[in-house]
């Protein structure tokens, strides 16, 4: 059981790999490419998961939406008072927000209505409101992505929203904000609640939804059930549920990709098996000489195992490092389209650097066992050849 690493054997394995340069290079390249593709995928997935977790973390504990016929509709602002009377509720804020589809560019913006004198439901939003004071009600702050789009269409000073009755509603741009998490703020426009209601054609006493802050995390479930009792037609979304469903979406996407990828893993297995099975006369001679010199079958198997381990280790390192470069320095062109939506504006978010043990272990189990397994039978064939037959 005590298997120490035999460095002479390791050196021999290295030389043996070197002697068959083209074969080693081919297998190494295929393996590296495989690991690269997989690791790029999982790096992107874990980055996005991290980013989403962060933005969900900043949200209030409970969101209350009104449903009508199973669809989300506006909720009366007066519901805030009912919710505030529930014990354990720290604060309840009626939000006015929605999407505005800018037809010329084919891009939806997220319009968030704020009341500068009210406390904002999110720290990042509070920061923006504090930093860029909206001097009058009739102004807006836009995200960087939105500003670029505006400029492209020559709206440098102000923008004309088309209201539901067809008339125009002009809002001057007060500033461009760049802070906060890019995934959510890139396509955002911040304006006063009043303007937002105007654009969405909402009544003054209505809100899109209500967010509820609960100080004690133990009480969230209780408060949620009390709100449900008070508003039977409401949909109550807790932060935890949101976190889980976000994580599930990302996991599901990478899972689907991976299950399709299994076909290529299988192909890879066949290629390696085939490549390793084809022995040159040179190799046969080599094994024959070793056996004639008194090497035992176990020793030759061990040497072959060293070869496989060396090759896969180097490929793993190279594959993972190239993927790190590709994802975090080149920002993963092409591959990240799997994860993000189809929207034009969303595509400019950057991927935060996340590298955890779990991803590395996952990559290891998806690639190395496959390669080593493919090399078992060919190695055994080589090792059990008879010396006299081979050298004849």
């Amino acid at each position, binding site marked *: 059981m005590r298997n120490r690493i035999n460095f002479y054997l390791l050196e021999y394995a290295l030389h043996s790999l070197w002697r068959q340069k083209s074969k080693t290079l081919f297998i190494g390249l295929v393996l590296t490419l495989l690991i690269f593709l997989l690791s790029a995928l999982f790096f992107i997935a874990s980055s996005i998961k991290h980013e989403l977790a962060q933005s969900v973390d900043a949200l209030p504990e409970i969101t209350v939406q009104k449903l009508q016929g199973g669809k989300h509709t506006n909720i009366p602002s007066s519901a805030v008072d009912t919710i505030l009377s529930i014990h354990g509720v720290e604060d309840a804020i009626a939000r006015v927000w929605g999407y505005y589809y800018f037809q010329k560019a084919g891009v939806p913006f997220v319009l968030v209505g704020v009341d500068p004198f009210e406390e904002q439901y999110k720290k990042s939003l509070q920061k923006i409101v504090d930093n860029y004071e909206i001097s009058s009600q009739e102004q807006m702050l836009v995200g960087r992505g939105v500003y670029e789009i505006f400029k492209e269409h020559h709206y440098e000073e102000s923008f004309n929203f088309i209201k539901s009755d067809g008339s125009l509603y002009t809002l001057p741009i007060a500033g461009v904000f760049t802070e906060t998490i890019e995934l959510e703020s890139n396509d955002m426009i911040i304006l006063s609640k009043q303007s937002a209601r105007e654009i969405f054609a909402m009544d003054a006493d209505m809100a899109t939804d209500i967010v509820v802050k609960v100080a004690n995390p133990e009480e969230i479930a209780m408060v949620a059930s009390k709100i449900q009792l008070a508003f039977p037609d409401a949909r109550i979304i807790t932060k935890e549920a949101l976190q*889980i469903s976000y994580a*599930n979406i990302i996991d599901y996407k990478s*899972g689907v990709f*991976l299950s399709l990828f*299994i076909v290529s893993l299988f192909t890879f297995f066949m290629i390696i098996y085939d490549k390793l099975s084809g022995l040159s006369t040179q190799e046969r001679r080599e094994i024959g000489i070793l056996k004639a010199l008194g090497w035992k079958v176990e020793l030759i198997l061990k040497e072959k195992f060293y070869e496989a381990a060396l090759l896969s280790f180097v490929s793993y390192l190279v594959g993972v490092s190239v993927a790190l470069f590709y994802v975090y320095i080149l920002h993963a062109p092409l591959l990240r389209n799997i994860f993000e939506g189809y929207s034009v504006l969303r595509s400019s978010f950057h991927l935060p650097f996340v590298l955890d043990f*779990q991803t590395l272990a996952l990559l290891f189990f*998806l690639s190395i066992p496959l390669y080593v397994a493919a090399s078992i039978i060919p190695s055994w064939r080589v090792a*059990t050849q008879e010396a006299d037959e081979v050298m004849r």
Partner: protein
Amino acid sequence: MLLHPEVLAILLVNTLFFLFALIAFVLSVRIVLFYNADESTSLQYKLQKEGYLASTIIKFIFILKIPLFLFFVFTLDSLSNLITGAMCAAGVVDATVYGNYLFVLKILNLYLFAFWLMLHYRESKREVPRYTKEKYIFFLLLFILFMIEVAVEFLMFDAIELDKMVDCCGTLYSSTSASYISTLFHINTPLLLGLFYANGVLLLLFYRLKNRYFFALASALFFVSALLSLIAFFGTYIYELPTHHCPFCFLQKEYYYVGYLLYALLFTSTFYGVASTFTDEKRGMQYSLLYALIYMFIVSAYVLSYYFKTGVWL
């Protein structure tokens, strides 16, 4: 649940194991049926060569099984974030009827694989192998257990439902719950601790006496008493919480993954201890004793440091 990337990876490696174990199984059957060391026909030479392949495959499976087991535990832990109610792997294990059996089976199989390899190693050191057939009969049994494990693992991951509420470890391992684990908390603590430390002393004693059979017995008992005392007593000091008895939570980051270290020490110690029945080398016993002592030291240190910090016992 099957489409989760970590689960897919485990299932993929399991499929690989299944295919190769099947090859080893067929070869083993041939060896068991036809092997005869006294004949020198070409069939016997062929069988001998096939024996190399079978043992290489088993070695391959075992070497990967160890990190895969760790990865499995790690995956269960991370799944607990996605399943409502679960706070650590205990909830996920309990989420399906298969969980507990799978865990026991996995640990048992790891031990059996390790013993098989130990046997194989001893055999290959001999001038004339004696137990070739027996070795492969042992593998045939092992194969059946292993196949059950692979099947149960698939069933378990298939059966986990994300939107179903499960119990968390706080209820599973509480003294008020009606499970069989709760009966454990009715054994009084001094008795349990006495057993644990007495077992440690026994290990030391049999090591001095160089009696490897008694040592192996003591080692197996040590494993049981260590697990029981870990759940009932030492765990509470790791968590610094008198009501928390979970054997999974200390695998998490909040406790610096100390569980992995503790279980690794315990498993290797028991393995070397029990395996020392096969060999007359002293080294196995040495390793076993060393790991057991380190384990005892660490868990005791948790208790003592808690006492020094707060001045009270839990």
